[in-house]
Structure formats: structure tokens, C-alpha cells
């Protein structure tokens, strides 16, 4: 059985403009998603794509206009309270805990709301505090925590009652890379070692690429792609990218490069001391020697060449530029 089934979900919001008019905004447009048990599922999308709306519907904080949402077989629209017991809900750090309380007091409070008490609660608190590495500061007031520590305590609250499903809305936004990585690793560990299902929303594409089992890319409330990161890269952005640092560039290299058959895109930027950097996107590796030859012809020296496979970022940008097809259907991946 799937942990989550999201079937034909539509959600619109009515927004008052400054002139007193009402605008209808479609946040989700016939969205269908299935998330398997124990899966690390990432919802990607630009601002306003519908990521937070998806999470809030799953947390039964929002009612969809139409569609069906089930969580471990429970219809969350019919029995929201039952579904809430299955989830741990984590939002951005600054808005999820009481700053005037200590970390421990927050955990005791939310633990009591989850119906935990006594030894069970104390043990659970010790476990989650160890997991988020807050043992040294757990008895300090949250208002004195750094942003990363606040995010840690927010995650600890979400994990406290041992939920089957974790809903995490941009938990790494605004964190420094090290803390963000620690949080991602912790969440990944929960899926691999404890079998938790994680729905994770983010803008950070690298984290989605390396940690997700599957990724859904939302744009304008529609699912434009849904697959594993590797499959998406293979289908949507095959080929490679080259990053070349050149010294003493002569003439218009960019136009010469664009004439080479496999080169799809060239971005250029100036560096210090007559140096320039070129980023090339190539459909395949067949014309690499021509690219190098062209570069050698138009510069004094190639200082460095870095070759990369396409990333999820390339997929993301390509899909968002491509958007929805003419019939308004989500982008269909071609094999």
C-alpha cells in the first residue's frame, strides 16, 4: 500500500487585490502523486509552484477544492484527526516552536499534545535530542538558538512521537551548508534505517538530487515531472556540461562554439586578469574534440576544463522553461 495517494487534487485561492478585486489563483491543478512507504520523496518547484500547499493539504491544514487524499489508507478529508497521528509536521525553524521556552520545554509540551508522558516522553526526548545533536543546548531558551539549532528543535518536535510520515516544508532554507547537509543526512537516515516516509519540499536542487528516492517537479500547480533524479536527468537533460577557463580570448568564441552540432547552450562570464569562463551544455560527447579545437583557436591558453554530467538543476531549468504542453497537459517525458 502507498503511504500517500494524492488523486486529482485541485486547490484554488481567492486573493484580494489592492483595488478590491478578487483574483483566483490555482495553487494545485489536478495533481496526482503516489508516495511509497519508506520513500524519500522531494517536491521541487519555484516560488508559488504549490509545494507548501501540497504539504499543508497532507497535514490537513488546507482543504482541497476537489480530489482525494489518503494517508496509509485513511481518507484525510473525512478523518483528519486520525491522519494527524501518523504525521510529523516540520516547517521553517523560525515559526514552529515557542521561543520563550527552552528546547526541552518545547519538546515536553508537544510530547504532551501527542499524548506522551512520564518515562516514555523523557526517553523520546533524549532520543530526538541526540538525533538532532542538541544535547548541549537543550535546556537553553530557543530564542538564544542559532537558526540551525531552531531548525533542529523543529525537526525534533516533528520526530518526537515516532510518526510514520514526515512532512518537511523547506527545512533547510536559510541554513548554512554544513547544517543543511546534517539535516538532510538525518532525514535520509530515517528513511533507510527506520523506514519512515518523508515528503520534503525544497528549492535546493542539489539536495533533491543526492538524497531523494523520487522527485516531483511542480510548476504553476501542475506536476511537470515525476521520477527518480537519475531517470529525470537521463530523460530530460542527457549529455554533459563543460566549464572552461580561458586566458586571452580573441573574437566571438560563443558564436563559433554554437556552430558545433552538439553544443546546445553557451554561457560566458568574465574573470580577473583577461580570463574568461565558458559554460557549455552539449547534447553528447561526440564533438568534444571540436569544442577543444575551437577554444584553442580563439584563446592564448586553456587554464582548466571541468566536465560534468547534467544535474537536476539542468532538468529543473529545462522543464520550467519548457513548461506545460499546448493542451495544458503536464510535460510528458520522452524515452
Amino acid at each position: 500500500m502507498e503511504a500517500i495517494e494524492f488523486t486529482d487534487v485541485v486547490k484554488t485561492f481567492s486573493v484580494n487585490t489592492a483595488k478590491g478585486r478578487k483574483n483566483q489563483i490555482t495553487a494545485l491543478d489536478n495533481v496526482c502523486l503516489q508516495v511509497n512507504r519508506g520513500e524519500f520523496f522531494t517536491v521541487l518547484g519555484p516560488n508559488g509552484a504549490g509545494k507548501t500547499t501540497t504539504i499543508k493539504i497532507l497535514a490537513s491544514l488546507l482543504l482541497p477544492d476537489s480530489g482525494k487524499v489518503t494517508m496509509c489508507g485513511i481518507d484525510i478529508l473525512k478523518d483528519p484527526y486520525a491522519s494527524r497521528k501518523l504525521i510529523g509536521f516540520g516547517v521553517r525553524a523560525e515559526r514552529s516552536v515557542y521561543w520563550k521556552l527552552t528546547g526541552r520545554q518545547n519538546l515536553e509540551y508537544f510530547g504532551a499534545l501527542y499524548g506522551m508522558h512520564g518515562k516514555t516522553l523523557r526517553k523520546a526526548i533524549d532520543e530526538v535530542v541526540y538525533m538532532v545533536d542538541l544535547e548541549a543546548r537543550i535546556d537553553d531558551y530557543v530564542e538564544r538558538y542559532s537558526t540551525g539549532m531552531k531548525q533542529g528543535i523543529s525537526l525534533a518536535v516533528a520526530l518526537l512521537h515516532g510518526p510514520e510520515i514526515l512532512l518537511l516544508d523547506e527545512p533547510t532554507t536559510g541554513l548554512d551548508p554544513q547544517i543543511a547537509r546534517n539535516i538532510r543526512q538525518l532525514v535520509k537516515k530515517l528513511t533507510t534505517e527506520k523506514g519512515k516516509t518523508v515528503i520534503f519540499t525544497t528549492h535546493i536542487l542539489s539536495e533533491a538530487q543526492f538524497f531523494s528516492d523520487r522527485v516531483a517537479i511542480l510548476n504553476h500547480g501542475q506536476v511537470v515531472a515525476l521520477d527518480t533524479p537519475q531517470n529525470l536527468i537521463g530523460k530530460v537533460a542527457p549529455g554533459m556540461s563543460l566549464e572552461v577557463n580561458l586566458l586571452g580570448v580573441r573574437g566571438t568564441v560563443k558564436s563559433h562554439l554554437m556552430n558545433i552540432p552538439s553544443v546546445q547552450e553557451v554561457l560566458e562570464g568574465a574573470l580577473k586578469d583577461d580570463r574568461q569562463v565558458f559554460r557549455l551544455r552539449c547534447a553528447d560527447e561526440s564533438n568534444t574534440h571540436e569544442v577543444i579545437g575551437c577554444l584553442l583557436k580563439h584563446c592564448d591558453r586553456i587554464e582548466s576544463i571541468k566536465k560534468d554530467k547534467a544535474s537536476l538543476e539542468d532538468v529543473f531549468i529545462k522543464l520550467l522553461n519548457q513548461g506545460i504542453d499546448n493542451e495544458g497537459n503536464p510535460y510528458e517525458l520522452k524515452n
Partner: protein
Amino acid sequence: MNLKIDTRFVHLGAIANRVLIEKLRYPAGFCLGILAPIIIYLPFSFLARFIFSSQISPGSPNELMLRSYIFIGILVLSFFGNIMNDIGFYLLNERMHGTLLINYSILRSVNTLLRGVSIAVIGLQLLNSILLLLAGYFLLGIVFKADLLILLTVSAISVFCIGEMAVLYAYIILFANERGTIHRIFTGTIVPLLCGISFSAALLPSPLSIVSFLIPITHIATALRYALTGIGELSSVLKVNLPCLVCFVLLLFFVNQRFHDIVVTRFRTHGKWEHY
């Protein structure tokens, strides 16, 4: 024996405990809050007593009545005003800080959150009232002739009634998105003028006396005055004030439930759990 406690009671206890911890974090502010009614209102009452004592002979029934009005006025106004303020703005603040969203993702209802807060806030106000009673006895020379059974009944119903009024106020604030005007109008004008706080509601002209009768605070003040000082009529308290208060409590309870459903449906439809 395996006792299974309704989770809602556990939730109420947890919420009340958290609010108390938050309030007790700053002991100086907390103590000042508890002593505030004495500091604010007692100088006025001394002044009023001094002015009127030149016109009324000391120890006469009129003088006792004057003292009782001054004292009950302080008690009811501070009790009501503080509770309305603390509970009324609670939901708005939770929504602004983002914690309303997290609480609702766990709790059955927003009413549970508000009632849990009410327990803590009313508990503190009762402590406050005990201090006021002592101040009234020692400083104003109020003679308490409390009928314990009546006092407990009146206090319990009054506490429920004011608590439910505050919950209703919390929802009205959310709907109207106002920041204290209603509170100022109510505690600054309506309650002191129409609710028999500073003078008997019977002295009001007839249209206003009807309005006065429809405000629960009028009945609370009358019943409390009788229960604490013995001024008034027992039959009137038992036949009019207490039944009216019970009706108000029931009515407010159902109105609040309705408001709760409207607010939650609105938030779940329009996504307004957070408001910056």
C-alpha cells in the same frame, strides 16, 4: 487500574502548563501583573471613599454599600479586563508567530487551545482576586459576609462565563482583524457604565437597563456583590442572576463552537493559518 483520560483534558493541561511556564519566566513582570489591579485601582477607591465619606455618615448602610460598589467594581473590572486581554489576543498572537499552525496540526480543535490558555489565565486571575480580597479587607475595610456555597457557585459560573466571553472575543478579533478597540470600548465604557459596577444597574434609564440586563457582567457583579458582602437579595440572585448566567454560558459555548467551525473552515479553505 487502567485509567484512560480523554486526550482533550491532557491537551488542556499541557497548554495551561506551557502558558504558565511562559508567564513565570519573568517573575518581576509576573508579580507586577498580579499586583497591577491593586496598584491601579486602589488609589482611586481610597479617593472615592474620602470624597463620599464627608457626605455619608461612617458605618451607615449607605457607606457599606458605597464600599462594596467600589470594591466589586475593582474586582470585576480587573478580572474581566485582564482575562479578555490575555485570551482575546492569544489566538491573534499565535497566528502571527506561526505556532497556531503547528498546534492545529496536532490538536482536534482551536477551541482546545483557547480553553487551555483560559485555564492558565483564569487561574492567575483568581490568585490576583485573592490578593484583591485581602487588600479590600485590610485597606478598604470591606466586611465580607460570604455564603460559601453561593460564593463558590457564583464564582464558578462567572469564571466559565468570562472565559467563554474571552474565547468569543478571540474569534471576533480574528474576524475583524482589530487590535484592541473593542476591548477598550468594553472595559472603558460599556462595563463601567452599564453593568452595575460603579452604581446600581437599577438606576439606569429603561432602554439602557434592558441592554444592561443582556450583558453577563451585570449579573456577575450583582451576584458577586451579594455572595461576598451580602448586599442585595438572595432571591434575585438565585432566580434571576444565576439562571441568566447559566443561559449565557450555554449560549456562548454554542456560539463559540459555531465560530470555531467557521474560523477553521475559513483557514482551511483560504490558508490563513499564518498572518504576518
